[in-house]
């Protein structure tokens, strides 16, 4: 097994800051926008983005929630093992809002497709955008692209991209694992 660090330390932090500033360009004070982290690992990135935005807009109160897509996935009963659901917490209606979906890694795009289905239960958003820390290029199964991208990497199917977080894994970093 070989590992390659794609992002760590100050670069990681700078990337998050850049993503926040790109968001601000399109969303001003976020009064008409909501941020949704996708379960399970997208919520760490969403929290980090929210914390960073809070530093920039100390008085703001950005609507945010977490979205679980388990029941909307298309591989139910096609995999070994159960797709175990996590919780969804969206205590507002997204009707007419600009929704920013956040996930750590964009790979096949199937999770995001499910997320767009899952969103329907909370109203008709004005617009849906996608923010991801890592975009694994040229590996999409569905025509989905991110609006805000931390880093782009070229990978092959057998490789794995792992995003670690200070909160849970002790360190902020993105690593590429080969020969798993």
């Amino acid at each position: 097994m070989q590992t390659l660090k794609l992002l760590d330390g100050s670069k990681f932090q700078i990337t998050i800051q850049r993503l926040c500033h790109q968001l601000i360009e399109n969303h001003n004070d976020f009064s008409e926008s909501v941020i949704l982290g996708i379960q399970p690992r997208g919520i760490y990135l969403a929290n980090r983005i929210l914390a960073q935005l809070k530093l920039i807009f100390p008085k703001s109160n950005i609507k945010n929630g977490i979205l679980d897509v388990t029941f909307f996935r298309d591989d139910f009963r096609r995999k070994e093992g159960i797709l175990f659901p996590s919780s969804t917490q969206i205590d507002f209606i997204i009707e007419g809002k600009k929704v920013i979906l956040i996930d750590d890694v964009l790979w096949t795009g199937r999770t995001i497709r499910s997320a767009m289905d899952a969103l329907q239960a909370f109203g008709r958003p004005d617009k849906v955008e996608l923010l991801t820390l890592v975009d694994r290029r040229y590996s999409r199964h569905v025509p989905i692209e991110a609006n805000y991208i931390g880093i782009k990497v070229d990978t092959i199917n057998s490789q794995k991209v792992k995003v670690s977080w200070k909160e849970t894994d002790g360190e902020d970093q993105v690593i590429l694992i080969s020969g798993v």
Partner: protein
Amino acid sequence: MANQEQRLSTKHLLGIKELTIHDIELILETAKNFKDVINRPIKKVPSLRDITIANIFFENSTRTKLSFELAEKRLSADTINFAASSSSVSKGETLIDTVNNILAMKVDMVVMRHPYAGAGVFLSKHIKAQIINAGDGAHEHPTQALLDAFSIREKFGEVAGKKIAIIGDVLHSRVALSNILCLKKLGAEVLVCGPTTLIPKYIGALGVKVEHDLLKALNWCDVANMLRIQLERQETKFFPSLREYSMNYGLNKQILDSIDKEIIVMHPGPINRGVEITSDVADSKQSIILNQVENGVAVRMAVLYLLANQSS
């Protein structure tokens, strides 16, 4: 968070007896997520869109049947309904023939209620589809026990260590047996209360206390689960009159106020108002009867969702 490898230990849901503690925990945890789903503006998820479920009811039912049907629809499954009274069963068709004919129409799961104990187990040995027992005679009613456990957990945070009194017609009740098994597995203390004639002789073997005095039972418990007097199953007289039963074992406001703590009142339905429970108690703040019905849909969605995974 539960890991992705978790699954049930069984292909069918025939009774609580066959379930492990882990199975019960998994169902209750999953049900929490479905309760969340059914409280959204759009209450439907597409998980079971490629599954067909037959609801086969050889006995009358309102709650269980509607609850299963709603759970199936909320999961986007296709459903067909079958009631024995309006079918070829009355022309003499056997159980296996009836079910096999239904399965020939490519049905994946069967939800069955039957007046004979063990009907689900019997069927599971002879047909390929997955069976969910929706009540078999006086034997088991597993989804009711699961939703009762879910409701108790929702109210108190956990089931372990809680004292639950099951009061009334224990002898004829499938709810009682499933509840005892489920609550004991989850670590609760269980007591059964009723007239001697309506308490099975060897029920102590299940590890439950037996009490014949309603007031003592109520003073002991945190939760009183009142059972319906099942007149349709009583071929002989088990007590002199309904009036006498209700005087001795009926739960009314007066007796509920006379105990010095606030207990939770449950009832699996249908209620015989004025017999085992009076209207003012059934509709009081202490009663969680309608919460039970709401939770029933979520718990059944969890059962169907988890079992559908087993067939892949």
